[in-house]
């Protein structure tokens, strides 16, 4: 079952690469949050109950509910353009992400480490690299945020792959980071939305006071 979630995670990465609509991407973030929740339930049955509960709450409430819905609200409130506007076309992104995923599968296959599960490693690194790729290849500032969240999902998967030795503090720290960044971006977009209709970063260069 856990492996099925990993496969669906790959599907969501492919889909994020080609989807041209902002709301599809945000829904995919919800899907990824739910997948992480499922993986956490299946994999982390050995850590102590408080940590487990916090992880489950984090994935379900924060990743699958709060963050995507907050971003949706930001989009709705500011009349942001709902098409994704990439530097690299969806098709080419798909090819690049396929290469990333295949590369990571090969990489994971060669790491025969007893502590780490290769499938999780592959999914985690694919998530991280896909997140970075989304950040450099999309024009909207919201998509940069989405890339950031995908990257974080990859890191969470990486921490799941070590199972019960999961450094909980690291995860919490990253979570806090992302939470603050989402809030700041939200505020930033809410404020700046009154001045500029567009959140295209190529046009934001002409900002002045």
């Amino acid at each position, binding site marked *: 079952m856990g492996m*099925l979630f990993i*496969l669906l995670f*790959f599907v969501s990465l*492919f889909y994020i690469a080609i989807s041209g609509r902002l709301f599809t991407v945000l829904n995919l973030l919800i899907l990824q949050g739910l997948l992480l929740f499922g993986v956490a339930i299946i994999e982390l049955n050995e850590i102590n109950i408080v940590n487990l509960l916090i992880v489950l709450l984090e994935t379900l409430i924060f990743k699958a509910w709060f963050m995507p819905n907050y971003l949706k609200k930001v989009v709705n409130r500011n009349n942001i353009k709902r098409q994704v506007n990439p530097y690299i076309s969806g*098709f080419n992104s798909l*090819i690049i992400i396929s290469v990333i995923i295949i590369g990571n599968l090969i990489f*994971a*296959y060669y790491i025969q480490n007893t502590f780490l599960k290769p499938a999780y490693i592959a999914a985690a690194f694919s998530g991280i690299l896909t997140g970075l790729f989304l950040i450099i290849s999309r024009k909207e500032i919201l998509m940069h945020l989405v890339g950031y969240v995908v990257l974080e999902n990859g890191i969470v998967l990486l921490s799941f792959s070590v199972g019960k030795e999961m450094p909980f503090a690291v995860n919490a720290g990253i979570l806090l980071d992302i939470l603050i960044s989402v809030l700041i971006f939200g505020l930033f977009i809410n404020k700046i939305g009154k001045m500029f209709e567009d959140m295209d970063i190529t046009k934001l260069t002409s900002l002045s006071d």
Partner: protein
Amino acid sequence: MVLAAIILLSLVFPGIIVKVKSKTSGRKGPSVWQPVYDLVKLFRKEAVYSKTTSWIFAWAPVMYFASVIMAALMLPLGKHGAVISFQGDFIFFIYLLGLGKFFMIVAALDTGSAFEGMGASREALYSMLVEPAFFILLASLALLSGTTSFETFFHSLTFNSSIAIFIGVLATYLIFHVALLENSRMPYDDPKTHLELTMIHEVMVLDYCGFDLALIQWAGHLKFVLYSLLVTNLFIAPSFPTWLTLLVFVTITLLFAVAVGFVESFRARHKLRNNNKAIVILIPIAILIFFGSMLIMNKLF
């Protein structure tokens, strides 16, 4: 017996597609048997050959039809083994279909018509693009079963794990799209329009008539049923009794036809320019199937 089922279903298949398309657009539509009447009518007529063509043009439809029938002989159905079966026959299967297509392409070039040359080049390009996806799919089945013959491919894919179901769903989707592409159906090409600039498959057979045209059309219908037979094999176990196997086969084929009808009714044709991208997108799906079968085989642990 399997071959008889394939041939019977291939006669009904196009009729059902047309019927579904008519119903969804609020028309009554022709009888389900109309394509059969058309075929019979065409079979009675004799073929007329253009003076610019050579023997290839006359031979190509026969080769095409023969290759499809031969391919049909290589597919098993549940416990009923294939008529022809040997190690590595899945590669032979793909290249048999390829051989038929090659003859159609050569024949289209043989006519010397610019339109047909254009269609031939598109057909060649799209078959080339879809080939990796189909090969990866069959290779993952080979990986799962540990053998390289259709006979044993499907035996090992039992649906006792969630990943197997996942693979089944993805493989069905993939085969469906390969079938649509091979027959130049809706999202890739519109068989209704006789607009030369958008046509792929139809344009190659413009110069055929009578008996030859009937062979080509029938071979196309047969191909659809072949792909639905592949899908059926994903979902049946060799332990099924004969009547159940046949029932599943007929049901899946009819569902397949209905699905094609719905896709044709509700989807727009891709821009021709975007077709090759749409086809290459099938490859990641095949890669996911491959990855899933590696997981089932525990190669990744």
